[in-house]
């Protein structure tokens, strides 16, 4: 008997709980990525050890970093437009939080089960572009301006392939709702064999590749990190930000990475679910779901950061050409093929 069903929380209690969950999960996602990938993974790739002092093997380094950022002086450049300058990181952070709202982590564990789940995610993730442009213009710094404008062009250019790539999955699943997509993958079958469910990575591999590339660009990670080109623009649109505001940009970047990886896991690997043929009771899935989702998310995060630390960066015109002339046609072709095959089979 499920002990939790005896409770009957009211609406405001549930909402508060969900709000707290969001506030906890979002930075935690960023923290996990930063520690595992930015401190340790990249260090091992560089044949060095990374932070080892704070805590065993540097595990408390994050606390030190957060503390460092928080205790800094809150300054803004003299010539900057103060209100917009201070608002920009909040907008970028807001778009990150909004993404986490629809990601399902278990049979009931979703903050808001929107019927237009994935459509909502794509729409909301574009809000960060406004924040970046605001940061670029309001900083009163030519480097920030260059970075912000580059970011504007790049982020908008790579929205389209992302949408088109996701469309393939949506056509195959027949729904926009993320929870339904998970269940469709877990309950599906491949040519009659239901032991693995039907993870869309098998049929939508092209879409997955395009989606991962566009995530890389949306997060302004190398090879698409022209806006934050460290050796040219010295942090681009974030150059005038320090202290908590920079921490917000930083957190937003890595939380978004975590969030998008979770979405990729949901769309292509089956999210929190295991194949229905394995007959695992739902009660167990309430607890195991988030853990499974975490595992699948980390796989995608691994790819994102592995690519990030391996490649040089593309020039702005080269990455625009890549988006418009290569990714979009391939994504369109993928949609057509998916649609035809869906109707045929």
């Amino acid at each position, binding site marked *: 008997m499920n002990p939790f069903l005896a409770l009957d929380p009211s609406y405001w209690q549930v909402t508060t709980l969900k709000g707290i969950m969001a506030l906890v999960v979002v930075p935690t996602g960023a923290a996990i990525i930063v520690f595992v990938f930015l401190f340790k993974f990249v260090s091992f790739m560089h044949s060095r050890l990374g932070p080892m002092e704070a805590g065993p093997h540097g595990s408390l380094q994050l606390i030190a970093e957060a503390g460092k950022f928080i205790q800094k002086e809150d300054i803004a450049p003299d010539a900057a437009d103060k209100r917009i300058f201070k608002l920009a990181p909040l907008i970028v952070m807001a778009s990150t939080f909004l993404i986490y709202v629809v990601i399902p982590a278990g049979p009931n564990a979703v903050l808001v089960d929107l019927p237009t789940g994935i459509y909502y995610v794509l729409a909301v993730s574009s809000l960060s572009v406004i924040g970046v442009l605001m940061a670029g213009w309001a900083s009163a710094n*030519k480097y920030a301006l260059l970075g912000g404008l580059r970011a504007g062009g790049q982020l908008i250019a790579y929205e389209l392939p992302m949408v088109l790539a996701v469309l393939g999955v949506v056509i195959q699943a027949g729904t926009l709702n993320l929870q339904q997509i998970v269940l469709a993958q877990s309950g599906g079958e491949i040519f009659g064999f239901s032991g693995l469910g039907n993870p869309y990575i098998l049929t939508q591999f092209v879409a997955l590749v395009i989606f991962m590339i566009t995530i890389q660009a949306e997060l302004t990670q190398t*090879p698409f990190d022209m806006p934050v080109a*460290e050796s040219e623009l010295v942090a681009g649109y974030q150059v005038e930000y320090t202290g908590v505001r920079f921490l917000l940009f930083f957190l937003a970047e890595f939380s978004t990475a975590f969030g998008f990886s979770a979405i990729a896991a949901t769309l292509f690997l089956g999210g929190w679910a295991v194949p229905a043929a394995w007959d695992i009771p739902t009660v167990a899935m309430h607890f195991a779901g988030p853990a499974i989702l975490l595992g699948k998310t980390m796989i995608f995060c691994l790819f994102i950061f592995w690519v990030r630390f391996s490649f040089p960066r593309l*020039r702005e015109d080269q990455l625009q050409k890549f988006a418009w002339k290569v990714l979009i046609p391939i994504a369109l072709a993928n949609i057509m093929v998916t649609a035809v095959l869906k109707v045929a089979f």
Partner: protein
Amino acid sequence: MTAISDRQKLAYVAAQASDARVNLELETEGMILNIGPQHPATHGTLRIVAKLDGEQVIHAEPMMGYMHRGYEKLTEVRTYPQVTTLINRIDWVGSFANEVPFILAAEQLMGIEAPLRAQYIRTILFEMGRIANIILFLGDMAVQLGALTPIFYAFRDREYVLNQIEAVTGGRFHPNFDRIGGVKDDFPKGWIEDSLSAMVKVREFCDQMEDLLMGSEIFQARTRGVGVIPPDVAQQFGLSGANARASGIDWDLRRDSNVGLVYGDADWKVWTHPDGDSFARFWVRLQETREATSIVDQLLGSIKGGPIMAKVPRIIKVPEGEAYVATENPLGEMGYYIVSKGDLTPFRVKIRTASFNNVSITPWLLRGVYVPDIVTILGSLYFILGDIDR
């Protein structure tokens, strides 16, 4: 072997021209951007004043002098051994290589030839300085382009070479080891075996760089066709070293000039590349590193015993005369023109540094490129601020 077809060149020029037309119609003014003097991409305090039109450079000009130390005036009041200490610091990454042309010029004026073993030691340390210098370049160029990993490998593998230089001379960057008439000390025990294994590691590093960076399509897209220098322009500006050889000029002072170093005793090759773009400069330097390890191996194998210092007086007075000696330093051609009046100190020393000429081409070269290309081109020309600013 050339990878840029004429069609691609035409397409590039046509794109530039159409951009220019649009700008003329819209009458957008240029934005002036200061790149430097504090900037991660300029190797030191170089300031580039770029007039930009969006992302394109209308006019870019380097402003130097933030590190000018007045060496040419200082050398007039320093004795020859003291000058050796000073000039160590011109190209601080090339360590031993700075001292050699000066010492050779002084020896030419005095009519002394260093013993054979000293010449071997000089050449070996010279090549090790070259290896250390170019490994830094290979990693650094990657960082300019955004690849964060190769530079760590570069610094890690440079340590082997720098440890060897330190074992002999006592200094990693400023050895101050060359003396008029020979070198200061001999190799310590076991140095030769350690150096041979260091060379093996350097070769492994070069292979890693080739896989990691040169094969990467993104690297090629960023560097091929960027910053093309035709050979005649290169000669006019006095471009030297790998920059000239990457434009197809077959000229290497190690082979073509006749100074007191023993390159003739080793079997090695001069690498050139016909393209003249940033990729070519990277490629030539990578091959040169391998070649340098081969030279060191051969010389270490064939070095014989003997004195390391010729008979020179304690207090050195160089006879009257003028001499110019230039050697193939890691950055290019570095030469010292010594005018001596028979005193303890030189009368005038003109220091001809490679980076000064290499960077003088940038106003010509940076017209019409994109902002990211500025960084690529500067990275591929590879200058050291101490070399420009003396």
